[in-house]
């Protein structure tokens, strides 16, 4: 690490000022780096496989290919959804948070618990993935009962979640240790963002764990039926915060890592913490907006969840302001003024910036389409159409994934202590991804407005007139998807090439976090009290769900037997 870098961080009020010089920190680095690298490479591999299934789906829907019976479309779609939504993101995020915490607080004890967590996640992933690939769990990543998969699918998914709890425990323990040593100090901001997100994740995953406690005995044949609408509600209690799990991790990179690409600062420590606390509170009590069109849930509960969903406007607007302010402040310091000049001045040729930067552009549109989906009255026009698929590809598939990839282009060289392999290819991967995602998601949104259903292998409906307008959009989506898949391929090449082609060097720059702009004044200590915020988040979740859950539990006594319809 260069002397200048240390000097820059010494002025850093995050509380991590003296850590780079702490010998215990140096000792923990080597082991910690290998652990984080393992998480990131696992995510990379999963992304590559998931993208292959994604592009084949695009080709199937465009009627360019027909998947064979031994590897049918729906099996592949399930694998794509599970690998991308549940596995790729989760491994990347657990790696990122491990990194953020180990680098801002010295790890003085064993990191074994984190390794055990990783292994449990990996075993669970393999168990679930092999069950899907063998055709015994063609139930989509939402696994709505009474579709009944092999027990290994549910067990594998449960292990994946349990593994994240172990990783979370390791990270949280480290932060608790820090707070005991330094009761008057705020948590370092990277550790704060990580722990705040993990608390949200733990609260959210309680829902899917409860669902698994119903589904596992049922799939094993120990119980004869399940309450279908209750399992759906438990799934979406988890399913929407899952989205915010990705977004909070991406926000952490936007707030704390992206400014390092242009020598910028974090706009405000207090407002960053406030944004994360707001997301912790507002992530969970909103899941029923995914069930707007479900029978058996009174419309009043749906309205309540819509209002709470829209509350996310506050942290979203705060984040947009903070990120753009961070751009402008740094640009002005460099003597650059005027909107277009500032945009041009940003390091668009640096892969660590271009990915998140392009992602931010996509996210503006993702936010708009999200407002439609979560609207009580407009959702009926887009629910379960290709519009929804377009929406989550320009939110998780665009901004989140591009941000992770951009961060990986910094993280992997730093952790592997190797230069980035083929930097031009790295840059190309992001621009191809961006362009492909614009084409693909536009086609998907359009198809959705024309009524094309999602999760359907063939939208021709035997040549029915109502379906005639859908085919062209599916071709557009397949073309865009091809570009995205090429982007993923190039990313995988760069990420693996960095490790296997380039030699180890000792002087590679570490991925530092940006210093905080201190002119915003001190942070109110209450923002750092995550225990209290967690308690409030649980109260909000209980208030939002007590009524609708009671309705599902008391409505009737029908318990559905499992069915295998594939």
């Amino acid at each position, binding site marked *: 690490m260069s002397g200048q870098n240390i000097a820059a961080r010494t002025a850093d009020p995050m509380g991590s000022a003296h850590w780079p010089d702490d010998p215990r920190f140096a000792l923990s680095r080597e082991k910690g780096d290998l652990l984080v690298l393992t998480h990131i490479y696992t995510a990379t591999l999963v992304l590559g496989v998931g993208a292959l299934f994604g592009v084949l789906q695009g080709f199937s829907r465009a009627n360019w290919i027909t998947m064979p019976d031994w590897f049918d479309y729906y099996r592949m779609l399930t694998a794509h959804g599970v690998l991308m939504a549940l596995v790729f993101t989760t491994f990347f995020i657990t790696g990122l948070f491990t990194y953020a915490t180990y680098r801002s607080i010295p790890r003085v004890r064993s990191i074994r618990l984190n390794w055990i967590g990783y292994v449990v996640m990996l075993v669970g992933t393999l168990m679930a993935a092999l069950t899907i690939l063998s055709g015994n769990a063609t139930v989509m990543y939402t696994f709505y009962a009474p579709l009944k998969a092999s027990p290994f699918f549910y067990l594998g998914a449960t292990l994946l979640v349990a593994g994240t709890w172990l990783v979370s425990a390791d990270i949280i323990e480290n932060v608790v240790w820090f707070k005991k040593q330094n009761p008057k100090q705020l948590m370092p901001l990277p550790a704060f963002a990580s722990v705040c997100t993990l608390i949200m994740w733990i609260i959210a995953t309680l829902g899917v764990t409860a669902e698994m406690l119903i589904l596992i005995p049922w799939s094993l044949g120990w119980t004869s039926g399940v309450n*279908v*609408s209750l399992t759906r509600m438990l799934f979406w209690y988890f399913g929407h915060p899952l989205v915010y799990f990705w977004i909070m991790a991406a926000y952490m990179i936007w707030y704390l890592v992206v400014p390092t690409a242009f020598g910028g600062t974090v706009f405000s420590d*207090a407002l960053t913490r406030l944004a994360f606390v707001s997301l912790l509170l507002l992530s969970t009590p909103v899941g029923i907006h995914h069930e707007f069109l479900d*029978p058996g849930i009174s419309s009043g509960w749906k309205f309540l969840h819509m209002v709470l969903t829209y509350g996310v406007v506050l942290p979203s607007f705060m984040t947009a302001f903070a990120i753009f302010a961070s751009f402008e402040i740094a640009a002005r310091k460099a003597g650059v003024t005027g909107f277009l000049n500032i945009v041009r001045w940003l390091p668009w040729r640096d892969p660590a910036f271009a990915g998140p930067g392009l992602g931010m552009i996509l996210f503006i549109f993702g936010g708009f389409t999200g407002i439609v989906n979560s609207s*009580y009255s407009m959702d009926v026009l887009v629910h379960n*159409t290709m519009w929804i698929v377009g929406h989550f590809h320009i939110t998780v598939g665009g901004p989140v994934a591009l941000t992770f990839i951009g961060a990986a282009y910094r993280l992997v060289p730093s952790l592997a202590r190797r230069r980035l392999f083929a930097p031009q290819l790295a840059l190309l991967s992001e621009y191809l991804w961006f362009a492909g995602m614009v084409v693909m998601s536009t086609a998907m949104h359009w198809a959705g407005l024309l009524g094309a259903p999602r*999760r*359907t292998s063939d939208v021709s409906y035997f040549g029915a007139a109502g379906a005639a307008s859908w085919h062209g959009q599916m071709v557009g989506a397949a073309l865009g998807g091809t570009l995205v898949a090429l982007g993923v391929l190039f990313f995988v090449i760069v990420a693996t090439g960095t490790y296997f082609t380039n030699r180890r060097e000792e002087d590679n720059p570490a991925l530092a976090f940006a210093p905080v702009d201190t002119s915003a004044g001190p942070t109110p200590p209450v923002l750092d009290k995550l225990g209290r915020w967690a308690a409030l988040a649980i109260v909000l979740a209980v208030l939002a769900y007590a009524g609708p859950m009671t309705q599902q539990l008391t409505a009737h006594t029908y318990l559905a037997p499992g069915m295998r319809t594939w």
Partner: protein
Amino acid sequence: MHIHRFERLWLTIGMAMLALFIAIIGVAAIGEGFVPPSNVQTIDPAKVAQTPPFDHPGLRKVGDHAYEAYYVAHIFSYDPATITVPVGSRVTFYVTSTDVEHGFSIPATGVNTMVTPGWVSSVSHTFKDAGTFLLVCNEYCGAGHQTMAAKVVVQ
């Protein structure tokens, strides 16, 4: 905690937009009835074939230009497969499933609802134009999901 005056303005705009959205949706819900399908009515999926009116699925005329259509959804078709109504008819659909989760969507109309076994879904629509409307299942229900469709003929 210091908040820059531009940020205060920006957040105020955000909160005002939020209030406006919710007010519009609330007024539309209460005043115009723009409420997502939320029928709360139970049924035993194992006994659908014996439960009136689903024991005889199909169309019932209930008034001048007013119809009720009872549908049973099961893998991978709807019963009835076709209904025919005159232009200008207001049709209230009642749908239930005998097996797994299904969808019930007529593209280019506001008809779109989930069909969950154990519940009766309901949604209404006035068909103002003549034509043959495709009705599709828009929730994955199994290997033949892409063939699960029916027709609404308006003439």
